[in-house]
């Protein structure tokens, strides 16, 4: 994946020289007057139906008073937001959402840089290794999470059995039962499932770097680290940014891993804001919608940052 736009057809036509004059001015009428609209209309309708409409409903719901039975009892004003912000766990949940996102994205990016470098080398069996890397990506995230949940299980889990047999612990531990050990394990799983995509993004980036540049560096006598810091990393920037931003959004919204492994419990001790939103649904759907609106706002901020960063990148190139 690359953020570089392909050179536009107009440009290449211009370079070809003769393209411009051949354009015929047909009389525009009927469908043609609408230009590209008939072609993009289905997409626009789809976006209206599956993106815009739910957002409108979401925001509307967050200002409603809905009974637990599901009946709308009129407007609630901003009460639901107030209730949300006054939740005892709210601050804690936000803090962990940030930690979760930052830690998982950082670790993923660093490991992926190394992995991409490795997979960019020629070695026997590279093709097989590259295919193998796809496995965690191809498997359903929910399935992976459930797999890890059982591996970590206190009574039946393979990890406890292994550690006890090795004599590292003397009593099986409930890894997912307490936040102190549950968070690191869930982060591990999140990194595990994010690695393939990120590594491939970076690998694609690495492959766009011309060998000439490296050759020139070698001739100038640059060492391996100097080459990496001075050439590889800067030229990898577009791919790296894409990786960071897509991971930020994915990890921030990550639901299945946490839900499958701890359901955010005990209480909301291992919940991110997305999981917290889901838990609120059980007691107050409007408050849950308010949490969604807050989440949505945070995602919008992330996307804006992405837009800004990618434009800056364009100018730079």
């Amino acid at each position, binding site marked *: 994946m690359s953020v570089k736009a392909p050179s536009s057809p107009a440009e290449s036509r211009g370079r070809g020289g003769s393209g411009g004059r051949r354009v015929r001015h047909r009389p525009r009428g009927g469908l043609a007057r609408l230009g590209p609209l008939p072609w993009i209309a289905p997409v626009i309708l789809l976006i209206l139906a599956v993106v815009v409409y739910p957002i409108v409903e979401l925001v509307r719901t967050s200002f409603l008073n809905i009974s637990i039975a*599901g009946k709308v009892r009129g407007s609630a004003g901003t009460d639901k937001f107030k209730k949300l912000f006054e939740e005892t766990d709210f601050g804690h949940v936000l803090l962990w959402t940030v930690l979760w996102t930052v830690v998982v994205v950082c670790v993923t990016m660093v490991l992926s840089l190394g992995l991409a470098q490795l997979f960019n080398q020629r070695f026997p069996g590279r093709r097989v290794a590259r295919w193998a890397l796809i496995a965690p990506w191809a498997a359903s995230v929910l399935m992976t999470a459930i797999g890890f949940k059982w591996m970590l299980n206190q009574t039946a889990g393979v990890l406890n059995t292994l550690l006890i047999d090795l004599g590292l612990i003397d009593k099986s531990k409930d890894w997912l039962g307490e936040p102190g050990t549950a968070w690191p394990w869930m982060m591990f799983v999140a990194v595990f499932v994010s690695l393939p995509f990120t590594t491939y993004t970076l690998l694609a980036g690495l492959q766009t770097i011309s060998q000439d540049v490296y050759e020139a560096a070698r001739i100038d006598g640059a060492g391996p680290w100097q080459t990496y810091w001075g050439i590889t990393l800067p030229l990898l920037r577009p791919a790296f940014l894409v990786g960071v931003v897509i991971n930020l959004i994915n990890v921030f919204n990550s639901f299945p891993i946490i839900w499958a492994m701890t359901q955010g419990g*005990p209480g909301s001790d291992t919940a991110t804001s*997305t999981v917290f939103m889901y838990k609120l649904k059980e007691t107050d759907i409007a408050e849950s919608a308010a949490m969604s609106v807050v989440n949505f706002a945070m995602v919008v901020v992330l996307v804006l940052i992405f837009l800004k960063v990618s434009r800056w990148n364009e100018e730079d190139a």
Partner: protein
Amino acid sequence: MTGAAALAMALGLTGLTGCGSSDDEGSDGKTTLKLVAADYGDKASNASKIYWRDVVKDFQKKNPDIKVDVQVINWNEIDKQVKTMIQSGNVPDLLQTGGYADKVADDLLYKADEVTSDKTRANLIPSFAKAGEVDGTQYGIPWVSSTRVLFYNKKILKEAGVKAPPKTWDELAAAAKKIKDKKAADTPYALPLGPEETQGESMIWELGNGGGYTDSGGTYQLDSAKNVETFKWLQDNLVKPGLTYSNPATTDRKTAFADFAAGKAGMLNGHPSLIQMAKSGKVDYGVTTIPGKDGPLKSTLGVADWMMAFKDPGHQAEVKKFLDFTYANKMLKFDEMYNFMPVTQDVRKEMESSGEHKDLEPFFAELDNAKFYPLGDPAWDVISAEMKKSGGKAAQEDPKKVLGDLQKKAEDAVANK
């Protein structure tokens, strides 16, 4: 991740979409009743839809002009789906599920006497009929019931040198300690305070200390001194000494039941469905009244599930026919199918005298004095859901703070009901 899923997730919309279905009014002069029911089965061969198919078939033999559409939904989904039905104004005629009072608050239900005959109502066991009342008017019609008793694994207790099953908290803790010392079981006492049924296990323990969820006037007192003391005791005597799960707040009842059925747990509070599980696990079990602080519980926790009729579709007469038919003819079959306890007097008599239900005798003995959740309070459903979320933490963190938080939420819920 596919683009569409990524998009949906990026927008934070997970799970907030609903779907509607059309209401079909019979065009051939027949009335169609829509019944939504929970699935009590745990495998294909005992799915509740098999039961309902049979009920409808027999009902239609007598009432050919009433059609009944049955939709059976599993327990994890039924609350959500019913909420969606109510929100989209598409309610069924009849609903059989776990709670009713929240729907009374929104004035959605028929009163029990509008949709059942006097005979049907007179047949209900009075304590259950009473539990179906909101402010003195019955809306909820009891469907099945169960009571809780203490299950113990005879082999484990014997191995640990425990002579008689415990009658008090201290005896229970002492027995658990012996089981631990002799390594007779992984989990001496299984304490499931996870989201599945925190509200059940908590109430059982609180009843043992003369506490509970409400005072005699029905005002919530979740953080009463007695309740705080109960959790303090659990912490100091079971959780901290390692006589139960290390994290009760994340351990669900189904885990505890499975552990007991696998012979890995010494004692636990259970309801009748554990009988079948223990038998198929070849566990030699015994049951006794649940220990309280100073002696066995005088009244244990009783749980009931409910049948209710929605006003909106307006098929009062047909609903009445269906309910009278079902309550007169089909209750025993359901209770036997799932080893539940009856809510009607004729079935109770039959089950107690037939000799085929010896297993259930200890549960019958507890039936008359059973205490219920504050089921008739429309705020209860919110409070119960809040308890499931965080109540279990009271056994690991400061109980005063955890229960105090819940009390605040309960007061909010009462103010908003």
